[in-house]
C-alpha cells in the first residue's frame, strides 16, 4: 500500500475544509494511506520569507524532518505549501543543512534529505498511475468540459518545482481525461490568480481572478479545476468581485482537484463538501 506523510496546510483546516474531506475520501478509495504529519506548522504561505527568510527555512526544515522521522515521503495538496517546502529542501540540500540541524537536533529531529516532497497531482501521475486510476473510475465525467487551471506554484519557479515543462504542462489535462471529462484549452490556464497580493493590490487581484474565470467560460468550460486550494479560494470566494472587475455576467464553479476526482470515483457532491462553495455547483452536476 502506498503511504505518505500528509502535509495538509492551514487552509485545509480553515476555509477549504471541503478539500480536506475530498482528499481523505479520494485517498481512501484509491487505497493510499495518508498519515498526517503530527505537529506540522504553517509553511509561511509565500509571505513569511519576506519578513524573515531564516524563520521560513527553519519551520519548513522542521516540517520535512518530521516526515523523515516517520520514514515517509511528504505529500502536499497546496501549490504554495509545495513550493515553500521544496524551496526549503533545495536550500537545505545546498548548504543550509549544517545551519539548521543543530537546532533541529535539540528537538530530537534531523534533516537528512530522505523524504521527497510531492504534490497530490504528481503522486497520482508518477506513483499511482493514471491507468490504475482509470480503472477505479465509477462514474466517468462524460461530457463535462473542464478548464484545468494550474496556478503558479505547482510549475514555477521551474528549478524548484520541475515536475514537468512549466511553459506547456499537461499533467492536469491528462488527469481530467483519465476521469472521462474533456479538458478545454483557454488563454489564462497558466496565469496567476493574484491570491498572494489580495491585501496589497486588491484591484489587480480581482482583475486577474475575473480574467481567469471569464477565459475558462470563453473556452466553453463547465467548471474550473485546480490543484491549489488558494487558487480555488480566489476563483470561488472572490468570484463576485472578479466578475465586477472584468464586467463578466456568468458564474463558473471552481472545483478542487480532489473534488473532481471524487465525483468520478462515485462520491456525491455533498460528500465532497461542494455545498460549502460560494458559486453554486448544482448546474455542473445536474443530470449526473
Amino acid at each position, binding site marked *: 500500500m502506498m503511504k505518505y506523510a500528509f502535509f495538509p496546510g492551514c487552509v485545509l483546516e480553515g*476555509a477549504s475544509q471541503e478539500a480536506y474531506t475530498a482528499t481523505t475520501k479520494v485517498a481512501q478509495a484509491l487505497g493510499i494511506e495518508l498519515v498526517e504529519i503530527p505537529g506540522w506548522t504553517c509553511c509561511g504561505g509565500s509571505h513569511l520569507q519576506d*519578513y524573515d527568510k531564516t524563520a521560513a527555512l527553519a*519551520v519548513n526544515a522542521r516540517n520535512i524532518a518530521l516526515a523523515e522521522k516517520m520514514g515517509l515521503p511528504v505529500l502536499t495538496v497546496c501549490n504554495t505549501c509545495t513550493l515553500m517546502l521544496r524551496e526549503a529542501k533545495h536550500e537545505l540540500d545546498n548548504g543550509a543543512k549544517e545551519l539548521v540541524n543543530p537546532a533541529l537536533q535539540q528537538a530530537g529531529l534531523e534533516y537528512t534529505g530522505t523524504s521527497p516532497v510531492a504534490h497530490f497531482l504528481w503522486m497520482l501521475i508518477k506513483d499511482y498511475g493514471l491507468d490504475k486510476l482509470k480503472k477505479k473510475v465509477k462514474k466517468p465525467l462524460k461530457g463535462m468540459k473542464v478548464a484545468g487551471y494550474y496556478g503558479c506554484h505547482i510549475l514555477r519557479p521551474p528549478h524548484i518545482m520541475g515536475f514537468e515543462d512549466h*511553459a506547456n504542462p499537461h499533467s492536469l489535462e491528462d488527469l481530467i481525461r483519465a476521469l472521462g471529462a474533456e479538458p478545454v484549452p483557454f488563454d489564462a490556464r497558466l496565469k*496567476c490568480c493574484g491570491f498572494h497580493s489580495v491585501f496589497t493590490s486588491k484591484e489587480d487581484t480581482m482583475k486577474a481572478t475575473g480574467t481567469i474565470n471569464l477565459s475558462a467560460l470563453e473556452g466553453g468550460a463547465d467548471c474550473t479545476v485546480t490543484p491549489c486550494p488558494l487558487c480555488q479560494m480566489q476563483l470561488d*470566494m472572490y468570484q463576485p468581485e472578479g466578475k465586477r472587475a472584468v464586467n463578466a455576467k456568468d458564474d463558473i464553479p471552481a472545483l478542487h482537484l480532489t473534488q473532481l476526482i471524487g465525483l468520478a470515483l462515485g462520491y456525491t457532491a455533498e460528500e465532497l463538501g461542494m455545498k460549502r462553495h460560494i458559486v453554486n455547483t448544482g448546474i455542473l452536476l445536474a443530470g449526473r
Partner: protein
Amino acid sequence: MRKITFKIHRFDGQKSWIQEYTLDHQPGKTILWALIQIKETLDPSLNFTASCRHAICGACAVRVNGQATLACETPLDKMLKRWESDTLILEPLQNFKLIRDLVVDWEPKAERLAELKPWLMPKDEFNKESGCRQSPEDFKKINKNSDCILCGCCASECNKLSGNNSDFLEPFVFAKAQRFVADSRDKNPVERLSAAINHGAWKCQHCQECVAKCPKGLSPAEDISNLRQEAIAKGLVEHSGVRHAKAFLDDIKKTGRLNEGMMAVKTDGLVKSIGNIPFALRLMSKGKLNPAHMFPKPIKEVAEVRAIILAVKESEKARNIAIAKRSEAHTNPDVQRPKEAAK
C-alpha cells in the same frame, strides 16, 4: 519536405494583423534563424531586433506561443516539440509600447529603470588611492544580478505589470535595485529601498513568471523579497504588506498554524477591515469562516517550534559575523590578509 508555419504579429504603426510565413524545416536551427530567414527570403518588411546572437545583448526577446524567450538561444526544434505542432505564434513582448511588428520601445523602460538609481554611489571612505575594494563573499552577493542583459522577458510575462503598470516597476528594475542595495561599496541603500517600496515592491503577486522566464538565471521575485526584508531591516515597516508577512511569523510562533480569520484585521487594521464585512458574511454563510476558529488552540509542540526558529537565527547570526570579519580583512588594507600573513 516538412514545413514550419510561423504566424507572426505584424504592426505598421496603426493597424495590426497576423501574417503567416512558411519555411522548410531544417534541424538544429533557432527562432532567430527563422526570423532572419523570413526577412531575407520571404518578406524584407518584417521588423525585429537582434544583434549578438549569443544571448548577451538581450535585443531579440520575443514571445513564442505566449511565452517570452530570447530568439537567438531558443532552439526551433525544442519549441516544435514543446508545443507538439509545426505552427508557432511569434509576438512582441507584452507590457511594452509597440513600435513595429516585433520591435518594442525601450525608451520608457529606461526612464522607469532610472527611478531606482541603477548606478553605484560609492561610500565616502573610498578614494583614488585606496580604491573601492570588495571581498569575494560580498562580490558573490551581486554577481548573479550583474548578469541581467535587459532583454525584457521578465517584464513581458509579469502578471502584476499586465494588471496595472502605474504602481509597479518591471521585475528587472527591482533586480537592478537589489544589485546595488546588496553592494557592500554602496552608501545609499535606504534611498533605493524606499523608492522600491514606493514603486510597489509589496504589490508583486509572487507568480514567479520572472524567475521562470529569465534567460540568465536571475530571480527577480527573490530580489523583490530581499528588498522587502532589507526595507524592514531599515525600518520601512509602515505597509500592509509588512503587517501581512509579519502575521505569518506571529501566528506560527503563537499556535504553529495560520489564523485565517484574523488575517484581514492584522493586515489592514480593524477600521479598514470593516469594508470586508460583506465578504466575511458571504464566507460565514457557507461555513468557510467560522468565528469559533478565531482563537485556535496551539499545537502541542509550539514551544519547540519557537526554540528552533530562535536557534537557527542565532547560528545564522554567528555565521554572518564570521563572514563579515573575513570581508573586513579583505577590504581594509590595514589588516593583513590571511594569505599574505602566511608568507
